């Protein structure tokens, strides 16, 4: 009798297991498209890790990445519904929001701005106060490099610099004039141009806007009000997987670089490793959880953009971001 009972339980268990598995199999994966801010590179390593390690699949999500690039409007991609999520700048979010676009940030992946102003080490330019009388290349027309302009003008305004004494020239991603000495100060991303220039062997003075009260986030994850309202579960799952990917990428960034190389346009491990190393402190700052956002930072960014008249219509800044999903993901975890 006992054996029969035992057998019964085993069979019951097997049926349950099989049934569960089948149910899981049956659950179709939610397809999600993510508009990246730029072409495939280590900048998005956390997402590649989440994809390759199956964290998205574990959350029931099938992710497709759309590369960004010159002329691609990342915010528009989400608003139009071409993508459900985008990696873009907080400025983009605020500007879109002020124009009435239903965009919200759900996490700040780069919690420090990668924007840095650089001058030659022997130029004695060490702070923004040294800019007057010098030639500065803070940015050009539109696109991602608008970050440079925003932060440059914010610095000028914050520190009360005389803009008329600063010769502003367009940003050149090749830095030709800067290297030649025709341009004294150029903006760059610490995750891009800085690496490039250091690889060229240049000794540089770095001037970080954040040292002067200009605190901008860089890459943020955004989605639409509609998605948040209709598919909040999906948003949580997507965010959880993405942050887990980033967590892994930081804890073992060499592995993350290896994974990135499957996607990257530039299949140069050295370059991608350098990018990875430079972005690590932006993602994990030593404070708070990865992706965590602070209202004062949003407020600060909003204030700066409003002051610069980038935002035409004032609005409640907390409409531009939501902590709901970060709180969902991290719950009571304290790390």
């Amino acid at each position, binding site marked *: 009798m006992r054996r029969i009972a035992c057998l019964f339980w085993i069979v019951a268990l097997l049926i349950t297991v099989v049934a569960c598995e089948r149910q899981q199999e049956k659950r179709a994966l939610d397809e999600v498209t993510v508009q990246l801010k730029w072409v495939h590179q280590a900048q998005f390593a956390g997402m590649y890790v989440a994809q390759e390690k199956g964290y998205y699949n574990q959350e029931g999500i099938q992710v497709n990445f759309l590369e960004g690039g010159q002329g691609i409007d990342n915010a528009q991609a989400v608003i139009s519904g071409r993508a459900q999520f985008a990696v873009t700048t907080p400025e983009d979010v605020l500007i879109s929001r002020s124009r009435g676009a239903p965009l919200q940030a759900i996490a700040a992946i780069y919690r420090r701005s990668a924007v840095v102003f650089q001058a030659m080490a022997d130029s004695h330019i060490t702070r923004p106060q040294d800019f007057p009388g010098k030639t500065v290349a803070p940015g050009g027309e539109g696109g991602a490099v608008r970050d440079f302009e925003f932060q440059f003008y914010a610095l000028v305004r914050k520190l009360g610099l005389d803009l008329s004494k600063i010769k502003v020239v367009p940003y050149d991603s090749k830095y030709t004039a800067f290297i030649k000495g025709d341009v004294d100060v150029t903006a760059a991303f610490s995750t891009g141009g800085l690496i490039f220039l250091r690889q060229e062997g240049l000794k540089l003075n770095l001037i970080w806007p954040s040292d*002067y009260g200009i*605190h901008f986030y860089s890459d943020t994850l955004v989605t639409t009000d509609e998605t948040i309202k209709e598919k909040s579960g999906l948003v949580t799952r997507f965010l959880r997987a993405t942050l887990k990917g980033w967590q892994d990428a930081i804890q073992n960034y060499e592995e993350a670089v290896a994974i990135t190389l499957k996607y990257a346009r530039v299949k140069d491990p050295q370059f991608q490793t350098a990018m990875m190393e430079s972005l*690590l402190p*932006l993602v994990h700052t*030593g404070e708070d959880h990865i992706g965590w956002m602070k209202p004062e930072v949003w407020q600060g960014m909003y204030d700066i953009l409003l002051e610069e008249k980038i935002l035409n219509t004032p609005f409640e800044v907390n409409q531009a971001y939501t902590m709901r999903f970060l709180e969902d993901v991290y719950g009571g975890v304290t790390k």
Partner: protein
Amino acid sequence: MKLAPRLTLIFFLIAIVPLVIVGVATYEISRQTLLRQTMNHLISTNILKEAELNRWIEDGKKHLERLAGRPLLRERFASVMQADADNSADPAHEKDHQQIVADHLAPYLATGGFLEVFILRPGDGLISISTDAAQEGKYQENQPYFVEGRKGTYVQNVTYSQSLEQGVMTVATPIRDRQGNLIAVLGGRFDLGELTRIIEQGRGLNQTEDTYLANKFNFFVTESRFGKSFALKKTVNSEGVIAALRGNDGIGLYLDYRGVPVIGAYNWLPNRELCLITEIEQSEAFAPIVRMGWVVIGIALAIALAAALIAFLFARTITRPVQQLVEGAGEIGRGNLDCKVSLSTGDEIGELSRAFDCMTTELKTTTVSRDELAREKDFSDSVINTLPGVFTLFDEERRCIRWNRNLEQFTEHSAEEMSRMTLRDFFSQEEQKLVAETIEQAFIEGEASVEANLLTKSRRSIPLYLTGMRIKIGDRNLLAGVGMDITERRRAEDQLKKALVDLERSNKELEQFAFVASHDLQEPLRMVSSYTQLLAERYEGQLDEKAKKYIAYAVDGAVRMQRLINDLLTYSRVATRGQSLETADSHALLGEAIRNLGAAIDESQALITTDDLPTVHVDPAQLVLVFQNLLSNAIKFRGEDFPRVHVSASDAGREWAFAVTDNGIGIDPQYADRIFVIFQRLHTRLEYPGTGIGLAVCKRIVERHGGRIWFDSEFGKGSSFFFSLPK
């Protein structure tokens, strides 16, 4: 395997197995002890380091607080603040700045273990004065140490500073005026290099001992022993760090950040949010035990080899005599029975060798008789094989156990097949019973014979005359069977039988013919004779002398003819009218013959004598006739003297030999062949009358009785007629 290497190996193993067990146990125990010691050391190192770390931070805090509490600084700073607010470009103001740095802040760099000491404006976090001029003018308004430092002393854990491009750990404390109003925030940036030095301290004792801090994102916070500029640049994902990050304190064996096996103690420092790791490479930690291991192995091997050597020498003392024994046995095996081993040792092997020699001696004797036996067997094999017929020896189960080549040739069976056959298999079903009975009889009575047909493999049959004779070999009853091929004899017998039948038939026909002929010839003859005589009587006187003479010739011829025919009848009747044989006294029968010849004897005055004559088994009338004819001849062919006849008989073994001896004219031996032939006459009818039938009849009668008749004579000196009769 030979004895010597085996013994050597066994001793080697006996020596090495316990040594290995002891060695392994010792090794393991020592290893555990060493591991425990190492672990204790690592744990205490961690406790020490944690205490040092805390003390270092506390010291920094205290120094900073003391500095913040200095009235002089407060006063000086207040005036500087005022000047700043006035936005004075007075060089004296600049000098004040430098004075504060030089007088108040700079001395604390060394004493507090700071890289930078600076004063922040309380309103917006601007670095007003700093020991590092490059930092002046930056805003720290969102830094936790500024936000918290306005309220009280606050230590901000290690973070990465973008602008400094390195990790920083900052402590801040408020500067208040006498009324307790916040006038500034004093900050001190810890020298993380100093932190590394503190953590590194004491590493020197071991080659590979490594202590470092890692943050909650797995980044090195202090430099590790085997890395360069790892702090906040490289991550570490070893088991120790992962465990510590889960909030666990402990110790374990795992692979460190380089992938090298280490023993590591790990602690999670919650208030610092750091992992404290102290590791030592297993290879170094276990080095003494490895050395000990080698020593143990060396000793074990040395002892085992010594044991093996001793075992080898010992084995030699055993194996050498054994080897001699083996050689001796080999020698004997090759047939040299004179070989002697004779070892002088007093042990069991010596005894064995002596027993061995005894055995050799015994063997020698046995071998001689064995050779004789072999010769004997060769002889018997030859004899068996040269026997003209088949020979087989079989046991009580009727299995063939030995046979000669003839049997194989006859039966066409191979020796191998023969060995599986019983005697029955050689005979047809009809004859099996007969053969079996004969064999049974032979086993019981000791001897028996039978004629039977031997079946060959190709189902031919060969007639054999089989004789079985029981013989006893050892305690076994065996039957020796000999079979002679009687094919030829059978054929001869068959021919003879056929010839006899033919002969008998022709004899019968002849006798029949003779009888019928002679009997039927009588009738016309009698008519010739009687009518001639009738003619002579009727015409008595009318006939002339010549006619009478002719009639007399005709009558005489007819009478002679009659006599011839009668004789022929007599001759033929010997076979056809013969009476059955009976026992008779030959003497009496001779008497009857003499009586029958009474007239002739009287006329010739013959003297007939006789010895004792035996009783014989004869047809009496015919024996009378034999005597009568022989006596008649003896009288008829008399010489000048009166005839004298002597009849005798002698015992000639299986038969009686009768002799009739006379003193007559004798017979020329050249007629010996003709004398017994019917109607053969040696003389003319005128010399001695008679038809010449007498001796032919005698011969026929004697032969009918199974005897012979012959004569012995010398011409002119009488003759002796002999005849024999079976007893």
